C-alpha cells in the first residue's frame, strides 16, 4: 500500500470520526441531490409533480437505512457506537455515584499497589546499578561445604590468594566495615559515621571516579605497617555537604577521625553506594595487611569478571583455588567452598520475600476488587434485562449488547487506572521504608516512567476484562425470548445470574480470608517477636553505643597459632569506666552498666573456643558467644539469675577470674549438673587464665528473632588479658551502655549525650535505642503493615459484596417475605429463611479460602516466627472476623426486608 493512499484513507477516516455531523450532512445532501434528479426525470417524462415525488420516494426506499449503510462502508460505526456507549456508561456511573466511587477506589488500589510492587521489582531485576558495567560485578562469599546454607564473608588470606592466582577476574577488591568517630568542633558535636577499610582493587572493581581529588594509589595501599605515617582518607559527597559545607578546598584538608588527624585525598560521589548508601568514609586497608592470617571471615570481597566470563566459570576458578589453598595451609580453610553472587543478587536478595508477599497481597486485592465490581455490574445488567431484551427484540445483535456492557467496564477500569497513579506514586515511596538490614541498599527509587505507565495500562486492561466478562456473558446468554422471559420477578430469583453472583461473593469471601490469615500470621509473628520474653526487663531501658577505636589501643605484637596478636595499650577500660560513671551521675538514671555488644541486636559476635570443651577445628558458629560486662550489669538489666551471683566490683584482676554463663551454655557443657564452681579457659592465648563460673543467668537471645538460644558466657571488663588475638581485639574498646531510667528513658538522651561530650568531646554516643518493641516493628516489618492494610480493605470489600447480594436478593423476595409475614410467620422464622442463602455463600467462601490460606501461609512460612503456617487460632480468628463482617453486612438489608408492609409488597406487582 502506498503512503499516499494510506494517508488518504486515514484522513478520510479521521474526518468521519471527528467531523461526524458534517459528514452525515454531506451524505444526506448527496442523497437529496439524487432524489431531486430522480423527480426531475419523472417530471420531464410527463408525470405530475406529486406523483413523481411519490415514485421517487418508492424507488429510493428507506433513506435512513441507506445512510446507515454508507456509514458502515466508512467503517466508523464502531466509533459511533462507542461514543454512544460511553455517554450511556457515564450516565450510569453518575447515577450510582456511591457504588461507582467504591468500585473505582478499590480497583485503583488494587491496580496501584500491584503496579507499585511490579515497578520496584522491575527496577531491581532490570534497573541499572549505578556502577559501570555492573553485570560483571560479583560478590564472593565463602560457605562450609557441609553446611551450604551458612554463607560467610571471606578470610583475608583467602582474598589474597584469590587476588594473586585467579584467572577469571579483571579486578578484585576487598572491604571491611569500620565505623569511626568524627571529631567534634565548636559548631558540631562528635559523630559516629560508617566507614570502610578498602584496598586499591575495591575502587578499581567498582570503577568509581572521585568528584574531587583522587583515589588511594597502589603505593599507599601497599604501605603497610606504618601506623604513624599520615592517615589518608576519602569522604563521601554526603559528608562533604553535611559536615564541610561543600568546602572547595576539602582536598588536602585535615579532619579528625578517631582522635587522629587524617588528610582528605578525595570525595566520592553520592551515587557510589556500596554496600549501601550509609558509608561516609574510606581508609586504605594497608595497615590491616599485617593480620593477613586473621582467622575471621569478616572481609567482603567484590570483583569484576573478565568480559565473557560467567559466574559459574569464576566460581569454579575460585573453588579450585580454595582447594589449593586448603592443601597448602591445612587447618584454616579446608571444608570451605566459594559462592559467587551477582552484585544485584547480593544487594537485593533480602527484598524478595517482602516484595513477593506484598505483591501477592496486592494482586489478591485487585482480584477481589474485580470480582466485587463484576458482581455490581452483573446486578446492574440483570436489572437492565427488560431494556436489553427490548433492544435485542428490535434487532440489536448480542455482540452489540455485550459490547455496551463491556464499555461500562472499560470506563470503570480506565478511571480506576488513572486514579491508581496516585497509589503507585505513594506505593513506590512507601516501599523505600521496607528497611533493609545494614549492609544492603534500600529499594531503588522508582519514578513514573513509560514502563510503569505501560504496566498500569496492562493491569487496567486485565481489570477491564476481569470485571466485564461475567456481566457481558450473562447478558448475551439465551436469545431475546429468554431475555424477555427473564424479566418477570418470579424467574429473576432463580435465574443463573443470581447463582453466578453467589459464586462471585463466595470468591470474594475466600480471597479476603486468604489475606486475613496471611496478615494474621505476619502480625502474630511481629507481636510475638516484639513482645517475646527477652530474659530481662526492657521497659525504661536505654541502650547506646560508645567506642574507642582499635587504632588507639591495639599495638601489633606478633602472632599466635596463625593469627595476629595485639598488645592492648593503653587499656581502654579506664576511659570506658570514666564515661560510665559520668552517665550514672546524670539525674534520672537509676543505674548504668555496660556490655561489649548490644545484648539482643548484634550481627557479628565474638565466639571463642574453650580449652577442652570445644573442638578447635569446629565451625566458628559452634563456639560459645563471649560478652564482656561491667559490674552490676545483670541487676541493671533486671535479668534474673537462676543460680549463683552476678559479676561484682570486687571481681578485680587480682582476684580469681570469674564468669557468668547462660542456661543454654550450662545445659550444653554440664548437662544435669550445677555449673556453679565449674571452670573453663578461653583458648585463644596462652596467657588466658582459667575462669570459675559464679552464676547462671536466664537465656537472653542475641537476636530478637532467635529461636534456639545460643551458649553465651559473660566475663568482666576488669578481668581481661593485656593482649588480644585478631580479629576480636576491638571488643575491649567498645561498650554498649544500658541505662535504667526511673520512668520514660527518652528525655535522658540529651543530658546523657551532653554528659559524655563533656569528658569525651571526640567520641559520641551512637545507636541510641529504647527497649520499646515498637521500634522493632517500624524498623523491620513495614511490609507487614502493608499486608495488614490490604487485608482490612479486602475484608471491607468482601462485606460489601455480601451486602450487595443480600440487599438484592431480599428486594427480589419482598413478595415472598410479605406472604410469610401475612401468614403469621414470626421475625425469627423470616430471618432464618432469608439468611440461609447468604450463609451458604459465606460458608462456601470460607471453606474455599481456608485452602488458599494454607497455600499463602506456606508461601510466607520463612517469614514467620513462633507461629506455624497453619496456626489454628489465627485461621479461626480470621474466619470468625469474616463471618462477623458478613453478618454485619446483612443487618441492614434484613432489617429493611422485615420493615416491608405486607399489603404494599403484595400489591406492588
Amino acid at each position, binding site marked *: 500500500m502506498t503512503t499516499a493512499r494510506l494517508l488518504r484513507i486515514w484522513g478520510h477516516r479521521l474526518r468521519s470520526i471527528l467531523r461526524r455531523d458534517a459528514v452525515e450532512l454531506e*451524505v444526506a445532501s448527496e442523497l437529496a441531490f439524487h432524489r*431531486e434528479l430522480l423527480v426531475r426525470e419523472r417530471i420531464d417524462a410527463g408525470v405530475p409533480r406529486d406523483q413523481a415525488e411519490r415514485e421517487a420516494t418508492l424507488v429510493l426506499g428507506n433513506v435512513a437505512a441507506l445512510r446507515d449503510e454508507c456509514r458502515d462502508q466508512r467503517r466508523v460505526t464502531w466509533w459511533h457506537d462507542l461514543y454512544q456507549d460511553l455517554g450511556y456508561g457515564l450516565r450510569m456511573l453518575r447515577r450510582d455515584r456511591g457504588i461507582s466511587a467504591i468500585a473505582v477506589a478499590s480497583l485503583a488500589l488494587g491496580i496501584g499497589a500491584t503496579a507499585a510492587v511490579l515497578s520496584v521489582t522491575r527496577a531491581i531485576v532490570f534497573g541499572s546499578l549505578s556502577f559501570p558495567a555492573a553485570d560483571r560485578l560479583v560478590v564472593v562469599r565463602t560457605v562450609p561445604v557441609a553446611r551450604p546454607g551458612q554463607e560467610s564473608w571471606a578470610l583475608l588470606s583467602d582474598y589474597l590468594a584469590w587476588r594473586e592466582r585467579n584467572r577469571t577476574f579483571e579486578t578484585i577488591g576487598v572491604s571491611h566495615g569500620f565505623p569511626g568517630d568524627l571529631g567534634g568542633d565548636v559548631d558540631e558535636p562528635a559523630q559516629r559515621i560508617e566507614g570502610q577499610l578498602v584496598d586499591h582493587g575495591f575502587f578499581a572493581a567498582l570503577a568509581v571516579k572521585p568528584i574531587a581529588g583522587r583515589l588511594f594509589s597502589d603505593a599507599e595501599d601497599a604501605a603497610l605497617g606504618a601506623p604513624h605515617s599520615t592517615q589518608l582518607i576519602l569522604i563521601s559527597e554526603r559528608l562533604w555537604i553535611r559536615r564541610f559545607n561543600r568546602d572547595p578546598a576539602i582536598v588536602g584538608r585535615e579532619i579528625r577521625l578517631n582522635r587522629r588527624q587524617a588528610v582528605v585525598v578525595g570525595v566520592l560521589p553520592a551515587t557510589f553506594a556500596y554496600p549501601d548508601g550509609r558509608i561516609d568514609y574510606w581508609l586504605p586497608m594497608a595497615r590491616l595487611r599485617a593480620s593477613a592470617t586473621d582467622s575471621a571471615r569478616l572481609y567482603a570481597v567484590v570483583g569484576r569478571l573478565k568480559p565473557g566470563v560467567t559466574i559459574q566459570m569464576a566460581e569454579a576458578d575460585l573453588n579450585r583455588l580454595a582447594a589449593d589453598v586448603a592443601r597448602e595451609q591445612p587447618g584454616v580453610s579446608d571444608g570451605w567452598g566459594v559462592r559467587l553472587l551477582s552484585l544485584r543478587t547480593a544487594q537485593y536478595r533480602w527484598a524478595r520475600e517482602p516484595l513477593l508477599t506484598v505483591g501477592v497481597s496486592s494482586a489478591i486485592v485487585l482480584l477481589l476488587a474485580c470480582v466485587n465490581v463484576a458482581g455490581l455490574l452483573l446486578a446492574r445488567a440483570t436489572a437492565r434485562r427488560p431494556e436489553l431484551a427490548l433492544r435485542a427484540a428490535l434487532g440489536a445483535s448480542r455482540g452489540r449488547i455485550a459490547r455496551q456492557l463491556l464499555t461500562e467496564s472499560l470506563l470503570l477500569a480506565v478511571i480506576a487506572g488513572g486514579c491508581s497513579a496516585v497509589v503507585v506514586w505513594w506505593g513506590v515511596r512507601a516501599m523505600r521504608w521496607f528497611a533493609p538490614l545494614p549492609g544492603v541498599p534500600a529499594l531503588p527509587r522508582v519514578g513514573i516512567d513509560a514502563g510503569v505507565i505501560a504496566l498500569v495500562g496492562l493491569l487496567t486492561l486485565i481489570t477491564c476484562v476481569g470485571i466485564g466478562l461475567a456481566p457481558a456473558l450473562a447478558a448475551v446468554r439465551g436469545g431475546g425470548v429468554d431475555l424477555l422471559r427473564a424479566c418477570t420477578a418470579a424467574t429473576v430469583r432463580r435465574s443463573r445470574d443470581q447463582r453466578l453472583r453467589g459464586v462471585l461473593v463466595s470468591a470474594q469471601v475466600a480471597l479476603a480470608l486468604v489475606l486475613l490469615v496471611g496478615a494474621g500470621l505476619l502480625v502474630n509473628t511481629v507481636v510475638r517477636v516484639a513482645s517475646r520474653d527477652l530474659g530481662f526487663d526492657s521497659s525504661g531501658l536505654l541502650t547506646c553505643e560508645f567506642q574507642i577505636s582499635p587504632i588507639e589501643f591495639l599495638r601489633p605484637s606478633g602472632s599466635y597459632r596463625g593469627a595476629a596478636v595485639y598488645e592492648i595499650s593503653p587499656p581502654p577500660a579506664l576511659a570506658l569506666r570514666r564515661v560510665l560513671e559520668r552517665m550514672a551521675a546524670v539525674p534520672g538514671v537509676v543505674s548504668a552498666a555496660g556490655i561489649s555488644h548490644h545484648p539482643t541486636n548484634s550481627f557479628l559476635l565474638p565466639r571463642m573456643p574453650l580449652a577442652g570443651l570445644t573442638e578447635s577445628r569446629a565451625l566458628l558458629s559452634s563456639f560459645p558467644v563471649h560478652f564482656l560486662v561491667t559490674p552490676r550489669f545483670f541487676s541493671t538489666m533486671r535479668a534474673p539469675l537462676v543460680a549463683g551471683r552476678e559479676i561484682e566490683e570486687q571481681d578485680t584482676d587480682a582476684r580469681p577470674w570469674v564468669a557468668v554463663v547462660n542456661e543454654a551454655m550450662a545445659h550444653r557443657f554440664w548437662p544435669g549438673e550445677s555449673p556453679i564452681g565449674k571452670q573453663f579457659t578461653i583458648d585463644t592465648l596462652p596467657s588466658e587464665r582459667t575462669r570459675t563460673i559464679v552464676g547462671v543467668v536466664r537465656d537472653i537471645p542475641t537476636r530478637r528473632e532467635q529461636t534456639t538460644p545460643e551458649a553465651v558466657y559473660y566475663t568482666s571488663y576488669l578481668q581481661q588479658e593485656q593482649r588480644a588475638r585478631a580479629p576480636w581485639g576491638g571488643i575491649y574498646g567498645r561498650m554498649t551502655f544500658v541505662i535504667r531510667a526511673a520512668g520514660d528513658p527518652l528525655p535522658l538522651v540529651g543530658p546523657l549525650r551532653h554528659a559524655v561530650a563533656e569528658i569525651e568531646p571526640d567520641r559520641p554516643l551512637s545507636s541510641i535505642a529504647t527497649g520499646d518493641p515498637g521500634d522493632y516493628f517500624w524498623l523491620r516489618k513495614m511490609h507487614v503493615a502493608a499486608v495488614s492494610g490490604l487485608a482490612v480493605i479486602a475484608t471491607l470489600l468482601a462485606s460489601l459484596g455480601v451486602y450487595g447480594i443480600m440487599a438484592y436478593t431480599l428486594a427480589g423476595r419482598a413478595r415472598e417475605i410479605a406472604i410469610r409475614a401475612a401468614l403469621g410467620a414470626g421475625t425469627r422464622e423470616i430471618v432464618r429463611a432469608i439468611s440461609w442463602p447468604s450463609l451458604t455463600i459465606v460458608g462456601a467462601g470460607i471453606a474455599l479460602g481456608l485452602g488458599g490460606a494454607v497455600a499463602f501461609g506456606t508461601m510466607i512460612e520463612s517469614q514467620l516466627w513462633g507461629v506455624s503456617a497453619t496456626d489454628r487460632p489465627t485461621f479461626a480468628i480470621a474466619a470468625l472476623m469474616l463471618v462477623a463482617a458478613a453478618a454485619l453486612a446483612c443487618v441492614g438489608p434484613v432489617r429493611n426486608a422485615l420493615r416491608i408492609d405486607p399489603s404494599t409488597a403484595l400489591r406492588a406487582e
Partner: protein
Amino acid sequence: MPKPSDLLQGTLDLLILKTIARDAMHGWAISKRIQELSDDVLTVQQGSLYPALHRLEHQGWIAADWKPTDLGRTAKFYSLTREGRQQLERELETWDRLSSAVRLLLKRA
C-alpha cells in the same frame, strides 16, 4: 434485467472505476452512464451505488469533490485517484482473465 447483486462480486466496483476513469461524475450521472453504455441492460440501484462509492472512497481508490452543477446546487463528484487508476488496471486484467476463462469453459464444455 439483472440486479447488481447478481453481478459478480467486485464487478460493480469495476464498473464504477471504469465509468469515472475519464471525467469526474456524481452518483446520479454514474448510474445513468452505466445504464446508457450497457444499452439499458445494467441498472445500478442507488441502494448499492452509494455504499459502493463510499466504500471505494474509504479504500482510497476514488476521491470526492463538491462542485457546482447545471442545476445550481453543488454535488459530490467522484474521480479516480492515482492508486485508483492502478487498481482499475489490475481489476481489468482480472476481469479479462476471468471472462475469457468463462468463455473458454462455455465453448468447450
